[in-house]
């Protein structure tokens, strides 16, 4: 019994496992410098979204003497058409963008995983019905629908935006999760769990889901980037009415208002949000690379 110390009690065991997991995650992240860089970038943006708007007054100061000012110490990325600091715009605009991204990802993955699991695990009639629904979702043309929707809906809150983007994007995840489930359910351990009389809830939550975790986590991250592109694109096109700070809005104003494509004056104003989008995407991509190792105990513990 001296060897069985981790067995002191079930809660204790679980705590040990959780601690080991996070220690494993830290180890995986440290394996490549690129992953640490990714974590740093994503953390920076998360921080921006969380506290960014608090750093600046609700209405950003304007400087009428410095419209489209060139980058300087006071304004590292110059100013916009009203003389507002571009950096401040990027920082305060992060919240909307990132919240939308997260909301989209959560809805996409939650819906997609749930429906995919249900369809793949129960097969038969459930499967047929859910997959027809998925096909239907996949055939909905997103952009035209959004154009129509924007005539009646203002999308003031990032969560509303996320909801719509999420409802338009879960089909792919559902299909992929279903096929994963179909292959996993043939594995011996799922069959054994059924044979032992374990509940369907246990089998899905404890046996199937963890095996799909790397896959799901990857989809979350990819969905975030997808959502960022989608909403920035929508705002850039100007199809959505806007009254808050947003990187897409900045791009729109820089190109259509400032003529950034033809003159150099508004170039910093154009490049700053672009750079932010690029950096955030890069950060996420660098982290995606680690997902397989994080959720596979064999690769994590090595």
């Amino acid at each position, binding site marked *: *019994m001296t060897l069985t110390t981790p067995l002191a009690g079930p809660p204790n065991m679980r705590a*040990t496992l959780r601690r080991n997991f996070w220690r494993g995650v830290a180890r995986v992240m440290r394996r490549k410098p690129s992953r640490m860089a990714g974590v740093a970038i994503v953390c920076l943006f998360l921080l921006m979204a969380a506290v960014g708007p608090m750093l600046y007054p609700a209405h950003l100061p304007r400087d009428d003497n410095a419209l489209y000012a060139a980058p300087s110490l006071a304004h590292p990325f110059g100013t916009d058409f009203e003389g507002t600091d571009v950096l401040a715009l990027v920082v305060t605009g992060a919240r909307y963008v990132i919240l939308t991204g997260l909301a989209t990802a959560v809805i996409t993955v939650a819906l997609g995983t749930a429906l995919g699991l249900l369809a793949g695990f129960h097969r038969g009639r459930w499967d047929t019905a859910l997959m027809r629904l998925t096909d239907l979702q996949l055939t909905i043309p997103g952009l035209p629908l959004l154009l129509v929707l924007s005539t009646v809906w203002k999308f003031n809150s990032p969560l509303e935006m996320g909801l719509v983007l999420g409802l338009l994007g879960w089909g792919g995840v559902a299909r992929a999760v279903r096929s994963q489930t179909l292959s996993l359910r043939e594995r011996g351990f799922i*069959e*054994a769990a059924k044979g*032992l*009389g374990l509940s369907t809830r246990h089998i899905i939550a404890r046996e199937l889901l963890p095996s799909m975790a790397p896959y799901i986590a990857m989809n979350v991250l990819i969905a975030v980037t997808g959502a960022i592109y989608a909403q920035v694109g929508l705002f850039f096109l100007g199809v959505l009415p806007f009254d808050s700070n947003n990187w897409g809005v900045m791009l729109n104003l820089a190109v259509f208002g400032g003529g950034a494509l033809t003159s150099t004056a508004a170039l910093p104003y154009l490049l700053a949000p672009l750079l932010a989008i690029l950096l955030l995407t890069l950060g996420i991509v660098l982290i995606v690379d680690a997902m397989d190792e994080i959720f596979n105990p064999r690769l994590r513990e090595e």
Partner: protein
Amino acid sequence: MITGTGVTKTYKQRGDVLGGRTVQALRGVDFTVRKGGAVSFIGESGCGKTTLGRIIAGLETYDSGEIVINGVPMSALRPRRRQPYFRRIQLIHQDPYSALNPTRTIHQTLRAPLTLRARQTRRSDAWVDDRAEELLSLVGIDPGYVLGRYPHQLSGGMRQRVVIARALTVDPEMLVADESVSMIDVSMRLSVLALLKDLRERLGVSLVFITHDIATARYVGEDGELYVLYRGQVVERGGTEQVISAPEHPYTQSLLSAIPVLHGLEQPGPERVVPTEALDERHPDAGCLFARRCPFRTERCEAERPALRRGADASHERACFHAQRRSVIPVEAVA
């Protein structure tokens, strides 16, 4: 005790545009496994032995026939009500690598069924952990070493022991071992076989042993019964030792003759049959199923299907018109 009568199973194979073809996995198989007994099903791949094992463990449906568990015919019950009966029959998978969830520790793997059981029998949480340790000790591994580990950290032999321990969590009456050692390193196979044998003696669980390797079937169940399956039909059955030492069906004789001889320790048996290899499994089903490959076939074999009949010995049956004892297994080499 479990008995089966006339169990049949047909698979539809997908493929062709015109509906595909059907494969008869089992063609009316009768069997009996007594409480605490050992029954081996042997045959080549595709003979239906795995399907039969899965049907016995309740993991597969059958088309016709009847299975009776402890006197209760399963056909009288609705599928949901059959589950408690089949739960006491646990399948040990062939592949210990896929039989354990790679994302869960051994402790988690054993805890889940034990917790369920504790709830059903109103036992405490402490019992769950005690029982997990007890079962691991029973299958011959140090609980302190494996409990906190993940499957990938264990050898194939150890994994298979964990799989057996997991099956024991529900206090089964019967274990169905399907090629349970074929993926384990040679030097560790025997210890897993010995464990199965031991569990049968100590716990009184009956054992259904499914394999293509007749020698391992003999090791585990020499006092039990042996069924030889060919294309979904039982072609010979009898006491394990009897069928091996005095086989009467040419197919059994071919199988036994195909076992490599340990030159140096053994010599080929005096009547070793030169095995003929499978020609085409798709040939018509008329007559004896083995006729095309049989070195002793006659015209009658191609026209008529022989039924399982008693031989000289009452407990030894075989389905062959030309059944004859042959001594085909290797004999000890004379020094």
